[in-house]
């Protein structure tokens, strides 16, 4: 029984250490803020959970596993919350993720990525029209899809002018 517990906690601790190290490596090497946040937040929660459970198995019937469980519960609740708050704060204060959708455009209102395709003049209107067409066509059956988006695309610029 003892050796089984030892093996289980060894596996958990080694896996947790690996997760933690991968998180640190990702934070060091990832190209920009949001990808770094992704690496950090996932491995923070996962690695901490693995290591704490691995230690819990070694505690025996004392107060130690309870304390570890308290730490585990607290970290499990607060680590994603802190990551969310960090991303929210970064986005609100103007750090935009340099993402690119399927048409090669960047975030709305941003200049295009350097090696992406060139943006035309009325790209914003085209993009909204494209989006509605794509969204509707995916949901509606084929017969309706040809009629409805056309109406929507025609209505859209009129509303924009007013």
């Amino acid at each position, binding site marked *: 029984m003892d050796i089984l517990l*030892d093996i289980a*906690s*060894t596996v958990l*601790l*080694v896996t*947790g*250490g*690996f997760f*933690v*190290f991968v*998180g*640190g*490596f990702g*934070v*060091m090497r990832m190209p920009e*803020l949001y990808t*770094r*946040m992704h690496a*950090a937040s996932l491995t*923070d929660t996962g*690695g*901490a959970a693995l*290591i*704490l459970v691995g*230690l819990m198995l*070694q*505690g025996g019937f*004392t*107060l*130690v596993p309870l*304390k*570890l469980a*308290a*730490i585990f519960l*607290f*970290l499990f609740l*607060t*680590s994603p*919350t*802190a*990551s969310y*708050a*960090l991303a*929210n*704060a*970064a986005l*609100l*204060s*103007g*750090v935009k993720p340099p993402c690119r959708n399927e048409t090669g455009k960047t975030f709305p209102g941003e200049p295009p990525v350097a090696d992406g395709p060139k943006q035309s003049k009325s790209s914003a209107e085209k993009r909204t029209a494209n989006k509605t067409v794509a969204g509707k066509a995916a949901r509606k059956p084929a017969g309706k899809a040809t009629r409805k988006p056309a109406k929507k695309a025609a209505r859209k610029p009129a509303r924009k002018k007013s």
Partner: protein
Amino acid sequence: MEWVYFGTCIAILVTMVLAVVRGVVGPTIFDRVLAVNMFGTKTVLFIAVISFLSGRPDFLDLALAYALINFIGVFAVLLFFQSRGVRRAAEAERDAGK
């Protein structure tokens, strides 16, 4: 078992060093906050593992207290920088409108 604890300690320490490097290098302020948050979480784990390595379970109370302090501290710093960023964006918009 000691060797496993020791290896986990080394992994956590290396990660802490990487987090510190990111905190020093980090181009935006949020990279630094991210690094500090990560450092705090890793400190909690490190204290927990050290308490098993040295056979002193009292250290777990310290780890719990550190987790609480870390969370509150990161939130306080984030609130401060978030309001600053929003204020600056509003000022820039107003200046552009003039």
